[in-house]
C-alpha cells in the first residue's frame, strides 16, 4: 500500500524524533549548567588573581554537608572559628557531598587554582589524595593539604612525599573520658550506650575511654555498644536505642555516628526526656530543640594552627597536629539545667584531671579495648 501524504498535514514528531529532541534539550541544559558552575561548585571566585599577595585562600572538601549536625558541620564550624581569628584568609565555597570517586578530582581543581590550604574532612581522603598530593608538591608548592582524623604513619605510608601535608588527630582518650564522666554521674540505671558509625581505631578508643571513665566514677556501670551503625540511617539509631532502653535499661547515650545519633535521641525523647539523656558529639547542640542533650563533647580540628604554620612557613612534613583539652582541640560544651549543680562541679573537677592525664591510665583503656 502506498503512503499518501497530504500537503496540508501538520508535521508531527514520531517517537524517536521526540526522544531525540528531549534528550538534546536536556543535554544542552546540563552543559550550560556545568559551564555556569553548580550550587556547590568546585570553582570559587578568588579574591585575587592566583594566590593572593597578601591574602590566603582555604577550601574544604567533605562527604556530607555543612549542616549535617555532626562530622562535617563540626569541621565547618572549626574552619569558621579559624577564619575569624585569621582575617587574611578567605574561604572558597565548601565542596559538599563529595563521593570517594570524586575526591581526587575535587582536590585537583583547588590545586589548579593554587589554593593555599585544602582541607579533607576525614581519613577517607588520605587514600584518595595520594597522587594529587604528590603532583601538587612538584607543580604547585604553595598548596598545602590538611587531612583530619588521620594517622600519617599508618594511613599515609604510601605517599611519595609528605612535604605539603599535615593531619589532625584529636585526643580520643580525652574525648571519651569526658563523655564517660558525664554518663557515669548522670546514669540512674547504671546502663549506658554508645553508637559508632564505623569500627575504626578511633571509635574503639573513644568507647573504651567512655566506659572506663564511667566505671571510674560509678563502678556498677555497664555499657552497650554498636560500632557499625553507619552514618545515615537515623531509623537504625532509633531502633537500637529503643532495644537497649527496653532490654538493658540504658538511660544515657553517646554517639559517633552523625544522623544515627539523631535517631537515638528520638528514642530517648520517646522514653522520657527527663530521665533519658544524650551526650552529643562533635559539636555543641545543647538547646531547646534538643530536649535530651545534657552536654556535648566538642572537637576543634586545629585549622587555625595549620593556618599559622602556613603563614610561618613551617607547615608540612606529615606532622600530626594533636587536638586536646590544653589547646582547645577537645572540650565539653554547655551544660543543660538537667545536670544538677553539684554534678556539674564534679564534672569540672574530673575534667581537670583528664586534661592533666591523671584520670585514666592507658592500661585501663586498653583493658576494655581488648574485649571489644
Amino acid at each position, binding site marked *: 500500500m502506498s503512503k499518501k501524504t497530504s500537503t496540508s498535514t501538520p508535521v508531527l514528531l514520531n*517517537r524517536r524524533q*521526540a*526522544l531525540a529532541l528531549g534528550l538534546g534539550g536536556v543535554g544542552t541544559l546540563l552543559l550550560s549548567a556545568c559551564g555556569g558552575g553548580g*550550587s*556547590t561548585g568546585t570553582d570559587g571566585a578568588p579574591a585575587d588573581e592566583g594566590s593572593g599577595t597578601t591574602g590566603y585562600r582555604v577550601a574544604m572538601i567533605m562527604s556530607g*554537608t*555543612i*549542616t*549535617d*549536625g555532626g562530622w562535617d*558541620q563540626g569541621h565547618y564550624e572549626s574552619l569558621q572559628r579559624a577564619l575569624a581569628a585569621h582575617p587574611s584568609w578567605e574561604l572558597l565555597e565548601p565542596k*559538599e*557531598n563529595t563521593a570517594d570517586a570524586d575526591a581526587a578530582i575535587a582536590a585537583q581543581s583547588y590545586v589548579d587554582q593554587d589554593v593555599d590550604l585544602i582541607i579533607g574532612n576525614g581519613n577517607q581522603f588520605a587514600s584518595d589524595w595520594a597522587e594529587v598530593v604528590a603532583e601538587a608538591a612538584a607543580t604547585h608548592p604553595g598548596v598545602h593539604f590538611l587531612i583530619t582524623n588521620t594517622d600519617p604513619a599508618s594511613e599515609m605510608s604510601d605517599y611519595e612525599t609528605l612535604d605539603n601535608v599535615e593531619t589532625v588527630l584529636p585526643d580520643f582518650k580525652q574525648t571519651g573520658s569526658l563523655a564517660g564522666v558525664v554518663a557515669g554521674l548522670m546514669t540512674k540505671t547504671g546502663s549506658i550506650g554508645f553508637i559508632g558509625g564505623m569500627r575504626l581505631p578511633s571509635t574503639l578508643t573513644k568507647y573504651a575511654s567512655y566506659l572506663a571513665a564511667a566505671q571510674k566514677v560509678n563502678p556498677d556501670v555497664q555499657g*552497650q*555498644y*554498636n*560500632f*557499625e551503625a553507619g552514618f*545515615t*540511617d*537515623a*531509623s*537504625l*539509631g*532509633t*531502633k*537500637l536505642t*529503643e*532495644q*537497649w532502653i*527496653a*532490654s*538493658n535499661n540504658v538511660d544515657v547515650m553517646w554517639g559517633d555516628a552523625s*544522623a544515627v545519633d*539523631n*535517631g537515638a535521641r*528520638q528514642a530517648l525523647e520517646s522514653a522520657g526526656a527527663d530521665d533519658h539523656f544524650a551526650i552529643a558529639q562533635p559539636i555543641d547542640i545543647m538547646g531547646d*530543640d534538643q530536649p535530651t542533650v545534657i552536654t556535648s563533647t566538642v572537637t576543634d580540628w586545629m585549622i587555625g594552627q595549620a593556618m599559622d604554620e602556613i603563614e610561618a612557613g613551617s607547615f608540612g612534613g606529615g606532622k600530626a597536629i594533636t587536638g586536646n583539652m590544653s589547646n582547645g582541640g577537645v572540650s565539653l560544651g554547655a551544660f543543660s539545667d538537667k545536670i544538677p549543680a553539684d554534678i556539674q562541679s564534679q564534672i569540672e573537677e574530673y575534667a581537670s584531671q583528664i586534661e592533666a592525664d591523671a584520670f585514666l591510665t592507658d592500661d585501663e583503656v586498653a583493658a576494655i579495648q581488648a574485649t*571489644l
Partner: protein
Amino acid sequence: MDFLTVLPTILKAMAMGAVPILLASLGELFSERAGLVNIGLEGLMAIGAFVGFAVAKMSGNLWLGLAAAMAAGVIVNMLYAFCTVTLCSDQVVTGMAINILAPAVALFGYNLFVGSDPANATGAQMPSIAIPGLSELPFVGGALFNQTLLAYLAFLLVPLVSYFFRHFRAGLSFRSVGENPHAAETLGIDVVRMKYVACVICGALAAAGGAFLTLCYTPIYIDGIVMGRGFIALATLIFGRWSAVGVLGASLLFGFFDGLNVALQAQFQAAPVMFFKMIPYLFTIVALVFFGSRRAGPRASGQPYFREQR
C-alpha cells in the same frame, strides 16, 4: 537474649518499618496492575522525603508537608508516565533514570533549603496516637496500637485497595488493562488514560512512603535516607502476589526481620554486625525464590502499549 523482653520493641520496629514499604508497594500495585513496571520507587520516595520535610518545616503543618510530598511524587512520576505510556520507552530503563534523577534533585533542593543554617536541618515529627484499650494489650499493645495517624491510614488503605480492585468497575478496568490492554481497549476502556491515572496514584503513594520517613520516623532529611526501601517495595509486591493483603503481609514480614536484625545487634555486640544486617535481605531473596512468581502478576505488565498494534 530474653525474647519476650525484646518482642515488643521488635513488633514496634516491624510496624514502623513496614509503613513506608507498604505505601510504596501499594502505589506500585496500581502501576503494575495497569501494566507499568515502575522501578523508580526509590527515587519517588526520596523526593517525597525531601519535599515533605521541607514544606512541613516551612509551613509548620505536617499534613501540608505530606500533601506537597504526594504532589511532588506525582509530578516526578509524570515524567515516567510520559516516557513509558506516550513514548513507549523501556519501563525499567526509565524507572532507573527516575532513581538517579529524583534523589539528586532532592539533595540539590535540600542544600538550597538548608543553606548554611543548621536550624533548618531539623524538622517536626508527627505525634503517636494510642488507641484506647488496644494500646494496653500485653506485648503487642504499645507496639502496634501506638502509631502515627499516617501509619493508621496506611494500614487502612489495604482493605480499601483490596475492595477497590475486587468490587469496583474502575478496579476491574485497571486489572483488565494490565492483563490485556488491547482487549480492554475494544471494550471502551481508555487504556492510556488508565495508565496515567495509575502513575498518578503510584507517584502519590510512593512519595507518601518517603514522607513518612521524615515526618514520622526521624525529623531530618539526609542523602540516602530511603536506604533501598523502594527496591524492597518491589520485592514485597511480588512476594505478596500483587494483592493488597499480600503486600501488607510481606511488608510486615520484612519489618519483623529488620526489627529482629536490630534486636540481635543490640544483644550480641561481640558478633559481626554484618551477619545480622543480612537477615531482612536474605529473607527477601528466599521469599522471592520460593514464593515469587512473575506468572502471578499481570500478563501485560512491563510491555509497552502500542494502540495501533493488532
